[in-house]
């Protein structure tokens, strides 16, 4: 089971308290589609994803970014139980959506960079370490039901 120190729990709670939830999710997902264009293959029904500007303006991307962020909020509410909490989501991504799990790490990197830009100096190495550990646990949980 994942062990969280008090400092890590505090850092993660602090991040969620500071960041704008309506901005981070949409921004991170848009970046993922722009920086790693092969990820667009999973969003065929989203309409125009042909350029950075189109992606940034796409309402379906924005809406889905908020859905993704909602998933992270669920994880932070269940910090000691992420694996079990995410089992259905993992199954969804592997069985129904057929997402290559490498892509979870790409989106995780984009989330980290968006948050770094929002928090700036407050995103210290200690906070970054706690955040990346959190994301690693989430990604691991999402990968769990594969195979």
């Amino acid at each position: 089971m994942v062990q969280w120190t008090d400092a890590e729990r505090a850092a993660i709670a602090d991040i969620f308290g500071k960041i704008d939830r309506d901005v981070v999710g949409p921004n991170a997902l848009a970046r993922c589609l722009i920086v790693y264009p092969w990820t667009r293959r999973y969003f065929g029904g989203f309409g125009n994803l042909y350029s950075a500007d189109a992606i940034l303006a796409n309402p379906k991307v924005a809406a889905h970014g908020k859905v993704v962020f909602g998933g992270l909020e669920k994880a932070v509410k269940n910090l000691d139980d992420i694996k079990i909490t995410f089992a259905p989501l993992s199954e969804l991504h592997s069985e129904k959506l057929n997402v290559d799990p490498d892509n979870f790490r790409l989106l995780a990197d984009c989330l980290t960079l968006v948050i770094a830009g929002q928090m700036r100096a407050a995103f210290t190495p200690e906070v970054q370490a706690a955040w990346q550990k959190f994301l690693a646990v989430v990604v691991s949980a999402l990968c769990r039901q594969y195979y």
Partner: protein
Amino acid sequence: MSLTDSDKALVKKVWAKIAPKADEIGADALGRMLYVYPQTRTYFAHWPDMSPGSAPVKNHGKTIMKAVGDAVSKIDDLVGGLSALSDLHAFKMRVDPGNFRVRAPYIQTILAHNLLVSLAVFFPADFTPEVHVTMDKFLGAVAAALSAKYR
């Protein structure tokens, strides 16, 4: 994945903007890397202090950013231009090339990722999605050039 002319132009533009803070960014990125990815400390075990903000980290951050700046000036031939540095990392220091890249299959990566974090922290308004993808590609190309002489 190779750098287009517009990528190269944007890299030069970004470098001109961030160059005044290059030392700070280098120190910041290196400090983050050593803290967040403790496995990278094996290469710096001879330093008296590896903590973010320490003198060895600041100095080496400067060295790294000088090399990145050099890479910008040699952007049309990174493999040739960084050949000596690749020799150094491969044969003298024997650094696992996974440590340079933006993305590695299993381990989260490392120096380039932390350089991007530092860019986002120091220049959030400039770190647009376009700049993000271009710098990601550029640092990937630099990492590939640094790995070129390994075998």
